[in-house]
């Protein structure tokens, strides 16, 4: 979209300045309002303001519709849950059926839910009885095995305590009576107390109960039974291996079969009650084998019948669900959209006549045409006679910040947004961050072997972008995926810096010609210490000469190089920040800031650290032996003293003194004039207004300074002055500490190369030296793990964090206000992507 309207500021600056926004008012005829909101949602370029902020959610006009949407969403969740439970794979690919209207959908959902719950309830009942029978069958089998275990004494028929009992459980009973006899004292005392007319167990009525109980409850069940019957019972249990569906709760539980003998009617009622409260299911078990067999037959025939019915019911339900499953996702998106629409409608102001609704919101100026098109389209679709009126309002409110990003720049914009959303139309550091961030990272992570590993990993992410986008990723993985394009550049840059540092897993290579140095003696025995002579006048033509690697002067050489390099990059990075503050001031037409902030700041930084950078470059070019620390420190301590052997060029002393003077002047320059001028301006204004010159608020001085005219002048001045003092102190001290802060580039780079050389020498080389297969394998594994875990993961993270800090504090601190708020247009795209 390249159509720009009259606003002179709406020049095409892309990512550098946020989009020009304007506050617009829509007056939408009531009949086309729904269509209009849908079209705007599809477009996603208008942020609605809430015009009913004082009303609570249920007092708003469309609260009822939102509730309806909530109810439908709940029905959809129910359907989805059912589909999931039935194990039907929902393939939302085929959306051949036509879209339903919202009201139709509601009716349909209600019908579906009713039908499903009916099917469910009937099948639940069937399932319950099926499970009951299943349990019954199990009980019969278990009980049968118990009884038949003592079948050997079959001949001994006995009439036992009035009950017709087979000898099948005689053995059990004998065991029981023996048990009773063995505990006579306990029993008799308790029995007496209870006042029951029981003599010996031989003459009491013995009964038994069989059933199943949840495995978790068996312990306390047994204990309670023991207490309730005063130990006057006999309990047998046998666990059932596979878990089964509980008929009452419909959950899979592990159950235990129990067989319980007791005596007396009173005990029976008690036991039955306890069984009930424990949720134990008890089943009558006939004592005779024949009866049992007959029952078994009956049960299995019933089971077969029930199974057939349940299966039929399930087929019906599955058919219903699979029919629905194609559309459920589509429907839930639709319901969510509807809900979003009603939320927006609730934010609109309804005109008294109820003929039209009034909306207010922000939109990018460049999107006005699109919005107008969408509005016209909506009016045409809904056969409205009047189309929506689209007005631009003037507002004093600060507009939201909106950057058009793509999937590449988006991640970098996120890094900046994490610090603070840019003020409306201020210079956006993202533009520079795209290169500086990966580059500063790479300075700390310079190893082209590690860089290649990182590149391979991130290329995998980028090439599989599509499948990964759909998948739900873990926390860390999602973060890595979101930042894949940042990591891509980070990897490429670290390959580049790695080549310059000439490090490949801490090893050096001679890709770019031979070294400029050669051994002085043919045996090369002293090559790591001394005895190297320069044989060529041209240096090694790309990066660090490989001969430094492993030599005794490697560290002093690399440290000096990296340290100076860090300062150079740091000073240029900060200068870029200061330069951006100039662009900001110019853009906002704030001359005060240019003259009394940008210029003194630029002078101060460059007179001190810019000069240091100059000295570094001069030293590199001329190969002088001057001590730069000495030069800089004595520039402050004794500016008049002679430089001696530290002189790098003629007139250095005069240059230094004038630079020092300029820096000293710059401090009061950035401190005093700005607040004084502001005060003067205000005086003038007060004076004028006292004479009755009424100014409209828009006609005020063009600069957007921090003054507001209602506040008392004295207080205002003090505030501005304090603010300026703080700002000045921060900058002056910051110039020193920020420059020092860039030395972290050197420190981390050193740490990285030292760590990787330790891993290489002390693990891999050491292990290979043993010439033992097992040791070699262990060594390689440890080396790989250490490289991946420490260097590729942790070091990446720490270098990333340090790069982040350098951007947030040292770079953005120079110009970035970051007090804006983000443009959040009403759009359907996050709704359809969700879930």
């Amino acid at each position: 979209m390249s159509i720009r309207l009259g606003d002179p500021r709406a020049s095409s600056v892309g990512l550098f300045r946020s989009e020009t926004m304007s506050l617009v008012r829509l007056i939408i005829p009531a009949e086309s309002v729904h269509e209009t909101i849908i079209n705007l949602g599809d477009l996603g370029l208008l942020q609605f303001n809430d015009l009913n902020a004082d009303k609570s959610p249920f007092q708003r006009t469309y609260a009822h519709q939102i509730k309806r949407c909530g109810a439908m969403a709940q029905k959809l969740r129910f359907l989805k849950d059912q589909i999931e439970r039935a194990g039907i794979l929902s393939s939302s690919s085929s959306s051949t059926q036509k879209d339903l209207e919202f009201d139709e959908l509601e009716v349909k959902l209600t019908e579906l839910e009713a039908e499903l719950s009916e099917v469910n309830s009937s099948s639940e009942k069937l399932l319950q009885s099926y499970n009951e029978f299943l349990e019954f069958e199990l009980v019969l089998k278990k009980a049968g095995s118990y009884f038949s275990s003592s079948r050997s004494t079959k001949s001994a028929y006995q009439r036992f305590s009035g009950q017709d009992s087979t000898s099948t459980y005689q053995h059990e009973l004998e065991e029981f009576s023996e048990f009773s006899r063995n505990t006579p004292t306990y029993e008799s005392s308790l029995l007496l107390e209870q006042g029951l007319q029981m003599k010996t167990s031989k003459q009491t009525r013995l009964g038994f109960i069989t059933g199943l109980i949840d495995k978790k409850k068996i312990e306390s069940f047994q204990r309670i039974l023991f207490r309730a019957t005063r130990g006057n019972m006999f309990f047998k249990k046998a666990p059932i291996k596979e878990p089964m569906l509980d008929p009452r709760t419909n959950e899979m539980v592990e159950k235990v079969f129990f067989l319980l003998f007791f005596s007396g009617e009173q005990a029976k009622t008690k036991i039955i009650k306890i069984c009930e409260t424990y949720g134990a299911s008890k089943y009558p078990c006939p004592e005779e084998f024949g009866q049992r067999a007959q029952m078994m037959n009956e049960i299995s025939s019933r089971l077969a019948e029930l199974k057939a019915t349940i299966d039929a019911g399930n087929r019906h339900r599955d058919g219903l669900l699979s029919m629905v499953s194609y559309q459920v996702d589509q429907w839930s998106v639709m319901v969510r959209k509807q809900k979003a629409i009603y939320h927006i409608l609730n934010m609109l102001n309804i005109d008294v006549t109820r003929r039209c609704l009034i909306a207010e919101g922000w939109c990018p100026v460049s999107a006005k045409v699109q919005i107008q098109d969408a509005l016209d389209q909506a009016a045409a679709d809904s056969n409205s006679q009047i189309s929506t009126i689209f007005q631009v309002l003037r507002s004093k409110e600060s507009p939201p910040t909106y950057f058009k990003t793509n999937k590449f720049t988006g991640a970098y914009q996120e890094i900046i947004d994490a610090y603070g959303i840019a003020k409306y139309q201020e210079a956006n550091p993202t533009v520079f961050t795209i290169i500086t961030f990966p580059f500063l990272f790479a300075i700390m992570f310079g190893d082209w072997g590690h860089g290649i590993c990182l590149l391979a990993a991130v290329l995998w992410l980028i090439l599989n972008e599509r499948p990964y986008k759909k998948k739900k990723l873990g926390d860390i993985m999602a973060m890595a995926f979101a930042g894949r394009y940042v990591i891509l550049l980070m990897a490429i840059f670290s390959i580049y810096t790695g080549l310059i540092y000439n490090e490949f897993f801490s090893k050096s290579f001679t890709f770019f010609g031979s070294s400029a140095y050669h051994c002085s003696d043919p045996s090369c025995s002293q090559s790591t210490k001394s005895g190297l002579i320069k044989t060529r006048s041209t240096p090694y033509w790309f990066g660090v000469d490989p001969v430094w690697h492993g030599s005794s002067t490697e560290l002093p050489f690399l440290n000096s190089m990296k340290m100076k390099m860090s300062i150079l990059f740091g000073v240029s990075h900060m200068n870029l920040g200061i330069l951006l503050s100039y662009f900001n001031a110019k853009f906002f037409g704030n001359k005060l800031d240019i003259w009394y902030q940008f210029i003194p700041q630029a002078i101060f930084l460059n007179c001190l650290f810019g000069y240091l950078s100059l000295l570094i470059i001069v030293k590199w070019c001329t190969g002088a032996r001057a001590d730069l620390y000495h030069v800089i420190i004595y520039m402050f301590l004794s500016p008049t003293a002679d430089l001696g052997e530290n002189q790098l060029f003629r007139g250095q002393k005069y240059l230094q003194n004038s630079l020092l003077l300029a820096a000293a002047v710059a401090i009061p320059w950035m401190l005093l004039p700005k607040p004084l001028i502001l005060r003067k301006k205000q005086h003038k204004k007060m004076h004028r207004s006292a004479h009755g010159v009424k100014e409209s608020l828009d006609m005020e001085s063009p600069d957007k300074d921090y003054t507001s005219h209602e506040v008392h002048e004295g207080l205002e001045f003090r505030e501005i002055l304090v603010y300026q003092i703080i700002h000045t102190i921060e900058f002056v001290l910051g110039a020193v500490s920020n420059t020092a802060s860039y030395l972290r580039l050197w420190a981390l780079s050193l740490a990285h190369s030292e760590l990787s050389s330790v891993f290489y020498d002390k693990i891999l080389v050491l292990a290979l030296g043993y010439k033992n297969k097992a040791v070699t394998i262990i060594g390689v594994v440890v080396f790989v793990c250490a490289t991946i875990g420490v260097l590729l993961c942790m070091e990446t993270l720490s270098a990333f964090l340090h790069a982040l800090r350098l951007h947030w504090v040292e770079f953005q601190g120079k110009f970035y206000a970051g007090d804006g708020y983000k443009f959040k247009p009403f759009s359907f795209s996050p709704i359809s992507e969700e879930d």
Partner: protein
Amino acid sequence: MYGFEALTFNIHGGYLEAIVRGHRGGLLTAVDYNNLCQCETLDDIKMHLSATEYGPYLQNEPSPLRTTTIVEKCTQKLVDEYKHMLAQATEPLSTFLEYITYGHMIDNIVLIVTGTLHERDVHELLEKCHPLGMFESIATLAVAQNMRELYRLVLIDTPLAPYFSECITSEDLDEMNIEIMRNTLYKAYLEDFYKFCKKLGGATSEIMCDLLAFEADRRAVNITINSIGTELTRDDRRKLFSSFGQLYPYGHEELAVCEDFDQVRGVMEKYPTYQSIFAKLSYGESQMLDKAFYEDEVKRLCLAFEQQFHYAVFFSYVRLREQEIRNLMWISECVAQNQKSRIHDGIVFIF
């Protein structure tokens, strides 16, 4: 280690204290209550609550809501939070947290026993029990015929067993006995909790003893008012009062002989703490007493959050949440029964 408990508190208690303070931030505020009071239907209440921490719990409830569902789901949230905290707690905090639930346990026991007396279905009764006071064999309570059996069958396994020593009788259970049992149990429970908190020392004992003393005094007043005109003798009444709190011992002597509400009032107005509560009530009016006590309690509970490094915040949080649920129940009932004019009578604002 009196005075130094703050030094080591965070080793075990820090995480949970942070959690409970976070939960406290989720309590409904006066703005929420004002909005809730304007609701027209239960669905409005649900809609409003869906924006609060109760949202996920009420999300899947189908539309014709009932008051009980709302209360049940809100209680569920409290129970989930409580269980999470209990699972994370170490000694002695875990014991402290368990102590909080004993009161509900006593109430549940009484509920089930009374229910069985009136031959109600046990499962129906179980649903009415407070989920915080559930224990494993609670359902078996229905089997018991008298106190002795009750104790021997079921309660011996519960932490309430020691409190029962005073009320084991072979008498059959009846309304009066049960009520006496409840109060005896409660008395023993409060005394035990009080002792436990004293043992913990430090800020915990300071704050908790104050809160428990208030609780004990409130119970004493309630017992007195409820027993006026019943056959409970003075000595029996005296026995039900906990042996601590501001009213102990002289106030208890005076309360024991009270014959009507105004006499109670006369006794209570001697105590500056309670004077303000009774000053709000006009003569002869005892209905509003509960609310006045609740309001004072909420104030005290909120104050517990002003100090750090003590366990009383857990007690306070559970109590405040319960008060909130009571408020929600009242609001929902008023809305459901179209009694909106009375809606403000029952709410105790927490913040």
